[in-house]
């Protein structure tokens, strides 16, 4: 038995408590908010930016849920994730959405969760619905979900990039892009949004690619502070300027050939050559710029004695190839010219006339477009390195040939864009299939 008296025991307890309190206070004292304040753990948290508030907006419900679950949040998340999969399999969309929200409450700073579930809502769930309005609703849900992720995580430029990509590619490049782009400006829920867009998605009533550009720019800004792990840095940083090109191109696809479209291409050229083109990127042989002058080459080579001018030229060339820099430069430049605009317009008009069954008029427009387009390609041969440019020409030829077949006319020996037709025969079957589906050609 213990020989200590009750008093002595109590004293021993008090001493033990005090002794134990010293390391506890030293380690765990909370920070007052000022730099250097608080215990060792608090200081480390500040140093490595691990505090909840330094990661992004704090959601009290999320914080309290994680606190209540103690160390079991991993298990709880896994269970919820399995539930979410099950709901998706059984097409219980409301439950899926609320389960995904619960997962996020538990894992608010796990980038992949935001990334995967945002994509899942915008792509997989959206595709499960039959009506385009419903599909658009789920694309919006994906965007809203990722937007929340962005607010809660300030250190992931990837999330901003993903948001931008949904605004741009998902809305602008899906099978349903025509309606999606329309809904982007006038939401199908006209009663709720009063014939305007969903303000959470498009508050300023812009084009989807303009909004995408804004988000890409935010991603670029964050990328200067926090490294991204999505793709090659140069390609990541090229995204806003590609969104500008997409914006201009989308107007063209929809048959808008006015000043707005020309200005958009001009703006794209300016951004591409003066902002993106002048940005320095680090290569294995030092920094390079994509829009260079002889002085730049010399200057960059002079920064390090181990790097020669030939090295700088070599790596500049490689990076230009990787980013397709020269093509986009030429494209943007050419798109501001009247001849190019006329070529696009003639081909577009020809397609529309074909669609409405006016084959004679379509034939005239397509021929005109092909002639003009051949001139553009002769003037800017580097355009022939890009799929979109090649396919536009080939599509015009396919429709033009189809009209000839329909009327029993022989295909002339010589016609504009014939070299392109001969050179790109490999692409023709696929394009023919696409056009058959698009125009209902049997």
């Amino acid at each position, binding site marked *: 038995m213990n020989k200590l008296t009750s008093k002595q025991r109590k004293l021993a307890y008090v001493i033990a408590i005090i002794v134990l309190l010293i390391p506890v206070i030293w380690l765990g004292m909370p920070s007052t908010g000022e730099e250097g304040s608080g215990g060792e753990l608090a200081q480390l948290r500040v140093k490595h930016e691990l505090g909840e508030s330094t990661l992004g907006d704090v959601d009290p419900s999320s914080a309290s849920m994680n606190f209540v679950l103690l160390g079991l949040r991993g298990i709880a998340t896994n269970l919820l994730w399995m539930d979410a999969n099950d709901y998706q399999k059984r097409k219980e969309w*409301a439950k899926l959405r609320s389960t995904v929200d619960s997962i996020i409450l538990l894992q608010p700073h796990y980038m992949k969760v935001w990334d995967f579930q945002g994509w899942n809502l915008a792509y997989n769930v959206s595709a499960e619905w039959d009506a385009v309005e419903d599909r658009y609703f789920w694309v919006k849900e994906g965007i809203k979900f990722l937007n929340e992720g962005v607010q809660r995580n300030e250190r992931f430029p990837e999330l901003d990039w993903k948001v931008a990509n949904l605004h741009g590619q998902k809305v602008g490049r899906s099978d349903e892009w025509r309606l999606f782009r329309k809904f982007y400006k006038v939401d199908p829920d006209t009663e709720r949004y009063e014939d305007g867009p969903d303000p959470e998605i498009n508050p300023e009533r812009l084009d989807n690619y303009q909004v995408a550009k804004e988000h890409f720019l935010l991603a670029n800004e964050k990328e200067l502070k926090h490294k991204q792990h999505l793709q090659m840095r140069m390609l990541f940083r090229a995204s806003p300027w590609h969104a500008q090109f997409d914006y201009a191109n989308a107007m063209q696809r929809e048959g808008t050939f006015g000043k707005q479209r020309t200005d958009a291409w001009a703006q794209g050229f300016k951004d591409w050559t003066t902002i993106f083109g002048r940005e320095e990127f680090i290569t294995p042989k030092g920094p390079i710029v994509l829009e260079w002058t002889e002085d730049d080459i010399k200057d960059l080579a002079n920064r390090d004695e181990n790097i020669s001018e030939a090295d700088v030229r070599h790596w500049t060339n490689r990076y230009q190839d990787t980013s397709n820099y020269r093509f986009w430069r030429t494209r943007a430049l050419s798109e501001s010219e009247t001849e190019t605009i006329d070529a696009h317009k003639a081909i577009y008009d020809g397609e529309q006339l074909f669609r409405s069954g006016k084959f004679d008029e379509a034939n005239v427009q397509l021929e005109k477009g092909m002639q003009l387009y051949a001139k553009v390609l002769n003037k800017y041969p580097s355009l022939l390195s890009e799929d979109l440019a090649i396919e536009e020409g080939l599509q015009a030829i396919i429709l033009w040939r189809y009209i000839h077949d329909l009327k029993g006319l022989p295909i002339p020996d010589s016609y504009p864009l014939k070299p392109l037709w001969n050179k790109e025969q490999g692409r023709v079957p696929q394009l023919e299939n696409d056009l058959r589906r698009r125009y209902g050609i049997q």
Partner: protein
Amino acid sequence: MSFDPIPYDLLGAFKYFLVVFGSAMLIAVVVCLIVGTLTRGAKGFTGVFRGIFDFFVQITHVSCRRIWSLTVLTIREALRQKILFVFIIFAVLFMFAGWFLSGAADRPDLQVQSYIDFVLKAISWLVIPIMLLLACWSLPEDIKKRTIHTVVTKPAYRIEIVMGRMLGFTLLGSAILVVMGTIGYIWINRQVPETAQYKLVSKVPVYGEIVFTDREGALTKTGLNVGDIWDFRSYIEGATKARAIYKFTGIDESDAIDDKLVLESSFEAFRTHKGNMEKGGILYQFIFVNEDKNLRVPSRPLINKEYSDNVLEVKRKLKYDNPEGKGEGDAGTEIDIFDDVVDKDGNLTVEVQCLEAGQLLGMARPDLFVRTPDRAFLAGYSKAVFGIWLPMVLVIMLGVTISCFVKGPVAILTTLTIVLVGFMSKEYMTEILSGQMQASGAIEAWYRLITHMNSQTALPDGPVKFIIEIVDAGIINFLWLCQQVIPNFGIFSNMREYVIKGFDVSWNAALLPGIITTAAYILPCLIVSFYSLKLRELEAK
């Protein structure tokens, strides 16, 4: 609606109960007789029968007055233990529910489902664990503190003590449930926006039987499989002779709403090509068929809006335009849907056909039903709350029973395990035992894991295989036993699903199985608790 309300086989269930209960009782009596005879000879043998007789004496002589006194005592004790503090958690949950439920806010139809789901889940997750703790803790605590002596020394039967506890907790739980249910009901009504209030109904569906025909028009049991991982629905091909044929029985005028026959469908589309996407869905058509009169009445083409309720209201009197040129009716003749289309036995046959070539329409039995006059949302909601009350009673019975033979913490763990297994693993066990799931035994799995042997390779012959098979067989038998004894709590959560999806809770497919499941445990629980309490040394701490 994505669940299939299959009518409950009452007779089958009763037979099953008799077999399980009867064999369990028989085994118990035989074991007792053997043990009794071995330990106390002939005295032991007769003692067993005396014990059995004792139960019948007590059960037939229970006094309602004494049970009521014990019930009141139980309620008082529970109130002293601050049971009503549960309302604080309840209030907090409801105050902050908005944080967790803002997900599908833009779609009021989906949001309504989340609200109802939340309310019913919150109530059951609060009430059931609390009642479990109370039921498991109460008796052992009384025995420990010896306060049970104040009861057992009174002229009260042991069975009355058990019944008093069960009734007391049930009444208390019921009162809590009523209050929470009422608050939940008001909360849902206030939370659901005006535009979605129409969703708060209890639809009363009449389901039919479904068969299919293939693209050549030959009868088949199922339609096409489009490769969906969830094979709930099967598909019919558009612009062919493929049909889904629904047959509804017992249809008459009382099923009409405002003198109209209302059909509600929720089919799923599968497109093999994009088609015209601006229409909002794939075109389909119903054909009402009366073979007796050789009558085929097609509806107008309808657009299938996926995951929504597609409602077709057919006026009772309609013009028959005789498009297929056969049957009794002539073009322009007026026909009565209940007199002419529904056959003399009250059967309504509806064929569904997809009208678009290259597109498919998927359906299952519950995807098309005749909607009869709706009941108020309150009707379905109260049945769903009743669906929480039933498992609560079951948990109380199990808790009190188990606490009769083990101490409080052990009783809690045991009851909790039974409840969790009953809620989560019942289907899993059924899949293993029925051979639906290709699963090896536990020891075999463990052996394969540590020897890195894949499941396709046969176990090598020898003593190891023999031992593994013996032990695994024992484990599987134990699993079988658990499956027979552990209640299927999943039955109760089905009721919630009905209300969430806007249906009245089906008597046949949900309420009845729930009531029967709960009722089936009353007698076994009373027997087990009676003997446990009778044999227990109540003076022991």
